[in-house]
């Protein structure tokens, strides 16, 4: 009885995970441009999972993996703006709107519909991107979109206001491999 249940469960798990493609070292990069200063940072540890069956996409990153050229800026980014000790992650939880035919190779224009959880504030978003399919599986994806700091309750004090743009340009890139449970 118990063993039967185990078998059923393990098949169920296997079945669910068979459609998962993941990227462990995705690139997320943001850029803030003002007349005073250009600020940018990159995280090379963005995790993304794409489910080819229900077309769900989850991308998540640890805020502290964003690396700045200026270490002090990195410290301020984490402490004052992102409060990464309290809110360590940012997540995009979305579904691809268009039906993708994974049996056909090619580059698809996709629209992700879902929520962007940044600085603990969830904002419904529609984000455009590109998805490359090859050999019946997603190979890579990329997107760029704007993030309004005010939408996510990230406050910029007036003294440094001129140095930080109100809207950041974010670009992400992922290369997918099939997910295998360790």
């Amino acid at each position: 009885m118990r063993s039967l249940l185990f078998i059923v469960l393990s098949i169920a798990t296997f079945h669910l995970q068979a459609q998962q493609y993941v990227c462990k070292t995705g690139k997320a990069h943001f850029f803030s441009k003002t007349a005073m200063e250009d600020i940018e940072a990159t995280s090379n540890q963005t995790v993304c999972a794409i489910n080819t069956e229900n077309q769900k996409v989850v991308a998540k990153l640890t805020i502290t993996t964003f690396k700045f050229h200026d270490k002090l800026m990195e410290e301020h980014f984490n402490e004052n703006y992102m409060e990464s000790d309290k809110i360590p992650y940012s997540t995009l939880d979305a579904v691809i709107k268009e039906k993708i035919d994974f049996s056909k190779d090619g580059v698809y224009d996709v629209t992700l519909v879902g929520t962007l959880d940044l600085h603990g504030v969830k904002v419904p978003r529609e984000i455009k991107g590109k998805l490359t399919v090859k050999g019946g599986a997603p190979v890579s994806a990329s997107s760029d979109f704007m993030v309004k700091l005010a939408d996510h309750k990230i406050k910029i004090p007036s003294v440094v206001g001129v140095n930080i743009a109100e809207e950041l340009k974010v670009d992400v890139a992922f290369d997918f491999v099939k997910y295998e449970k360790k």
Partner: protein
Amino acid sequence: MDLFFLNSKQQTQMKKILFLLMVLSARFSFAQNDIVDDILNEQKPKREYVAYTFKSTRIINGHSIEMVKKNAIDVRISHRFGDIAVKGVSGHTLGGIDNASDILISVEYGILDDLSIGVGRTKGGTANVGAKELYNGYIKYRALKQTTDFKYPMSITFVANAVISSQKFDPFVSTQLMKNEPIAHRASYMLQGLFACKATPWLSLQLSPTFIWRNYVPYNDVNGMFFLGFSGRAKVAKRTAIIFEYFTALGTMGNRQYGGFVRGKKGLDYYPNLHVGVEFETGGHVFAVNLTNSEGLIENDFLPYNTKTWSAGQIRLGFTISRIFQLGKGSKKAKK
């Protein structure tokens, strides 16, 4: 194995297990988020270091465990005004605003994240009997970093400095430097261990045992002296903190006399250093306004020579500004 072969007690246990398994199976509907979380957990570094125990390389006058980041320069200007509330004096100087007890200008460079060197120059505390015109060079090394899981409960930094005075001999002013003395008599040194713990996200505490060696001291004084410092920083708002510092001499300090005839000055007492302040941080700058009884700004001056006390209104307003410059701006990187 089947439920049929089990006794009633085992059966209820088995039912519990089955129920648990069914509950667990519900989690597979969130499998995708779990996979992402699992990978993120794998990526997590084994040890995470506590960041910004203090906001600056100094707390008020004394060093903090914080370092200048690699390839960055910290330019620091400190100013201490005159006595704020001494009867018959402070009224004429607008609470000491007219006077400058001490001024410090220093430049510190981070060779590595945990190793930095610095040079500075101070005027030397006005009423202090110690030598004036102090040039100092120091080296600072962080040996241990506190981790967020408190496996390493504190950060440890060591500071060593050497100070030399360029003061001119003046028979009417100087009680310290005589004519034709060897240059070594103008030097003093400090060794300091800093032990700090960021206890909570808003409270950091530090102990600073300090040893000071002065090459030349007058009759009745000692060359080597031990001090213990206790400092703290309490964050009260996002960019504002209250800072605190207290230094006291350890032991009897040899033949040093309190209130007696010391160094040719009658009725000269030495007091512990008590400093309080408010620290404001804006991107790249740290600005602190403080009240101190010490006049001097460098340890070799304010620790052994502090003759001012809070109880006599001999407190002074002071401010410190620190500006960080990151070198080697990656212009190539910005262009992508």
